């Protein structure tokens, strides 16, 4: 009986964890380049108290939880800005940050005072040979990743990077992803961008809302099981102590 209490408790905790993930997805439902997370749970079997051979039922906890990021593209949002671009298909923009190289799908770029192509946070966008210097002339991003000036002169080229296993990426916040040191980075040869806009969030609001309702009901169910357990224990003690 005590164990089933913990099983229900673990179930309720798992639903709370799911709530946090769903809340974060919905808060970021319109953040550029955001990718929705899904909670993942694994069963954790506990050995029966009487040992395996007695045939007593095993308790199955909701154990070790994590989350995986859904890496499908978000909708294109037109802004009209000449340095905005969304990636068609797979791949990430590479940016240089104070804590090493990071990756992003958010293609809203600017030029800083030194003429370097940067993200709104000031991180330099990397091309084949490092940060790209465009200078003070007005520039536009082309669909093949080239940056051209008003007269059509090529000022630089953005590079895109793909990962063999995108699930290795973790989120750093500020629309950035990090890759572990041993991750296989594959430079993208044929760059396809859609300039003049950015990729929106890939959060499917309807799905998240349905998830919200479902997890809330499941939480209620776990709590109810907890309460049933509790009242059964209480009845038992009352009976025994009479």
């Amino acid at each position: 009986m005590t164990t089933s209490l913990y099983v229900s408790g673990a179930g309720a905790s798992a639903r709370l964890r799911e709530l946090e993930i769903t809340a974060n997805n919905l808060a970021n439902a319109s953040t550029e380049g955001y990718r929705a997370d899904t909670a993942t749970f694994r069963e954790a079997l506990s050995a029966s108290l009487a040992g395996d051979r007695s045939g007593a039922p095993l308790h199955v906890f909701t154990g070790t939880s994590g989350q995986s990021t859904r890496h499908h593209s978000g909708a294109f949002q037109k802004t009209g800005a000449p340095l905005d671009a969304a990636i068609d298909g797979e791949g990430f923009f590479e940016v240089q940050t104070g804590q090493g190289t990071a990756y992003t799908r958010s293609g809203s770029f600017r030029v800083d005072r030194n003429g370097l192509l940067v993200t709104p946070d000031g991180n330099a966008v990397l091309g084949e040979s490092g940060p790209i210097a465009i200078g003070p002339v007005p520039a536009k991003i082309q669909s093949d990743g080239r940056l051209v000036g008003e007269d059509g002169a090529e000022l630089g080229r953005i590079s895109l990077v793909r990962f063999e296993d995108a699930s290795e990426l973790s989120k750093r916040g500020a629309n950035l992803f990090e890759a572990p040191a041993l991750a296989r980075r594959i430079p993208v040869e044929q760059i396809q961008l859609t300039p003049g806009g950015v990729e929106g969030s890939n959060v499917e609001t309807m799905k998240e809302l349905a998830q919200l309702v479902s997890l809330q009901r499941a939480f209620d169910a776990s709590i109810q099981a907890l309460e049933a357990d509790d009242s059964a224990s209480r009845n038992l003690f009352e009976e025994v102590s009479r």
Partner: protein
Amino acid sequence: MRALFTAATGMEAQQTRIDAIANNLANVSTSGYKKQVPGFEDLFYETLAAPGALNDSGVALPTGAQVGHGVRLGSVGRVHTQGDRVSTGRELDLSIDGNGYFQVELATGETAFTRDGAFELDRDGNLVTRQGTLLLPSVSVPVDASGLTIRDDGTVTAVIAGDSAPVSLGQIEIARFANPAGLRALGSNMFAATEASGDAETGVPGDEGFGSLSQGFLESSNVNMAEELVRMILAQRAFEVNSRVIQASDEMLQRASSL
């Protein structure tokens, strides 16, 4: 409960979005206005288990456990695309076609920059903006001048009573920046240079990298009403959705605390 605060950041973000949209729509007919587009980013993550870390049995975790904290405002960018040219026929109205800003001198002596080319003459005949700030380099028009012509390269000429040939009155120069999005808005259609925008580089209109002038035209705002209205509807729905999360978290907390 973290979800409550996460949803609150979501609601705040949508509120900021609505504020920016409202400002854009309010300025839909302000000449030289550049629309604001807020950019958001997800907040830092608390890592409960890093991806690749070893679990109890020594096997690397394929996915970690990270908890997000919601969203925050990353930047409010101004999109500096060209607004439509509107013909006014007024000889003191100028629009810049392409890159560049008019330079004006504020009462404090500082230089400010603007795309609003609706000029007037002050009592000394100097070209000034509607707020009375002096255009730099200053151009003075004599009282008896007529047929004021400002060419696309900024040269100002007029015919003085008594002469038949037009006389040159001056040259208007415009300024450009490495990062116009980094200019600080001062209000009254004026911007100030900042660390982020870089220093102003002046030049003659029509030169490489500088736009040309059109007399008798004004540049309208670059706000696209349909776009703003669509964004407004989306922001409103996203706001509602986040408030739904707060409701759900509240109900769950209530349920748990009534155990």
